[in-house]
């Protein structure tokens, strides 16, 4: 367990540095800077002397490698820089966004796992049945939905027409505001999980050890509980992990649609405002979340499947 953990952690640091270098490089070739953008929106013109001073203050004139090195050292000490726009520390900007983001992602995943795994499991136990067909038609439809359109339709039906739920916003952060965005975000992972679970359970049901268990007189219920579930779980956990990890990034559109104050909507706003420190901070947050969840998944493997320990 510790070796797995150490190996994962040793992988995380270079990945993070590489991601940050990539983002840094991408945005350094950006033609319009935040300051020239202030001029271009035409509302006001800035005195060139002021622009010069601001560029200096923000360190935009230093050579690129120097800026990157400085930034990475700051990141390592927990300082993500100062937002170009609000002049607040980026850690503070992101800090208030993390909890809503996590809440949304967890709720979406909870929905995806509970519905998706159940559907896939029921479908696999009766292949070719009505449940199977319905579940699989539902799953491929779920994979083909565009999240934000689905969200928009949910909003129209449940908020505007039926008036059961608030149409957007964070409200008091309670469940009522969370349901619609979480379902819109979770429908894709739900569909994928239904398909994966079905395939995994079908694979295991045809395995030799299941036939053996049945032929030695084990009850069907016990076969499913003891052998099938446990073995199908490894594949399901992989998909859960991959989906879970990337969900914070995928949430950008849903967060924007529902005006949810998460990291994703901060990213979109910062991109529009060319607020580079905030953009970098958000991407770092999203990547770290992905890597963290993946580490957890690796650890979960070891817990589920003792064979993995000896590899």
């Amino acid at each position, binding site marked *: 367990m510790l070796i797995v953990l150490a190996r994962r952690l040793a992988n995380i640091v270079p990945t993070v540095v590489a991601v940050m270098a990539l983002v840094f490089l991408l945005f350094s070739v950006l033609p319009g800077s935040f300051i020239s953008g202030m001029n271009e929106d035409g509302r006001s013109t800035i005195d060139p002397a002021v622009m010069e001073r601001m560029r200096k203050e923000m360190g935009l004139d230093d050579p690129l490698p120097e800026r990157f090195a400085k930034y990475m050292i700051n990141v390592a000490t927990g300082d993500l820089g100062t937002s170009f726009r609000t002049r607040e520390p980026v850690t503070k900007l992101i800090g208030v966004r993390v909890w809503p983001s996590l809440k949304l992602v967890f709720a979406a995943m909870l929905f995806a796992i509970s519905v998706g795994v159940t559907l896939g499991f029921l479908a696999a136990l009766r292949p070719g049945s009505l449940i199977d067909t319905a579940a699989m038609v539902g799953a491929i439809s779920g994979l083909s939905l565009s999240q934000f*359109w689905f969200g928009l339709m949910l909003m129209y039906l449940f908020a505007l027409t039926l008036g059961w739920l608030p149409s957007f916003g964070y409200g008091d952060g309670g469940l009522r505001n969370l349901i619609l965005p979480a379902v819109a975000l979770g429908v894709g992972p739900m569909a994928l999980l239904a398909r994966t679970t079905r395939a995994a359970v079908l694979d295991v049901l045809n395995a030799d050890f299941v036939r053996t268990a049945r032929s030695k007189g084990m009850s069907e219920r016990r076969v499913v509980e003891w052998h099938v579930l446990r073995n199908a779980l490894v594949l399901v956990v992989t998909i859960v992990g991959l989906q879970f990890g990337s969900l914070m990034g995928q949430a950008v559109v849903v967060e924007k649609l529902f005006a949810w104050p998460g990291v994703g909507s901060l990213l979109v706003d910062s991109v529009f405002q060319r607020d580079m420190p905030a953009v970098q901070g958000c991407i770092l947050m999203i990547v770290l979340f992905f890597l963290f969840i993946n580490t957890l998944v690796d650890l979960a493997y070891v817990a589920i499947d003792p064979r993995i320990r000896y590899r």
Partner: protein
Amino acid sequence: MQLKGGSSLWIGGGLVAAAILVAIFAPWIALTDPVMAANLMNAEIPPDWEYPFGTDAQGRDIYSRIVYGARVSLTVGIASQICNSLIGVTLGLTAGYWGGWWDDVVSGLTNLMLAIPSLVFALAIMAILGPGLLSLVVALGLTSWSFSCRIARAQVLSLKSQGYIQAARILGYSDLRIMFTQVLPNILGPLIVIATLGMGGAILAEAALSFLGLGIRPPFPSWGSMLSEARDQIRTVPWLSVFPGLAIFFTVLGLNLLGDGLRDILDPQSTTRRT
């Protein structure tokens, strides 16, 4: 009844063919010009016989705009998947065949691409390039090649030691010639499946980016940009939102079904199952 290769192949193929025909013959199928035929006298008419999908706030025919929007979605989907396939296959084949430090570099890059959600990466690229069709193709064509790269690499590794590859080497074929004339034809099946499924993903991503205002900008019709305009009027003019979304749904559904059907034919061992 179960969705077997047969039925999903035909339903999916039919939907995709329909979308392609609509895109090609847009000027003949559309009732009016998608951008210029604005007429405030006809604003916000619900769907009826004259305007099958209704009209928007500027009085433009939604049906005609959706017909033209198919061009954007399919162009972005096809072109970006060609980019992704070229990048993924080239990197994967060379990494698997040559191995060594190049393999390490490519694996590192692949892991990097996996760690950044592709929508976030595409968003960053769109922010730099600015809105537009070409930017969309570049942004989506550069950000999701990791899957085809992995498949290509894995396949080369298993084919490398086969007799016919050895024979080609002894005959003095160059490395690149072996990769592209001997190995590539053998892995084309899985790659076509990935590209088909990826096209659906790219169309969804295009819609998402246009929705955020980073892709195709109004008034030019793209399904995402139409939804972006429609969102604020969902309460009063809901049909604005319904039809572009359905167009996206059926096109992507077609591609997903086609991909599943093709997989059963081209990739029976299923290296490309979405796991």
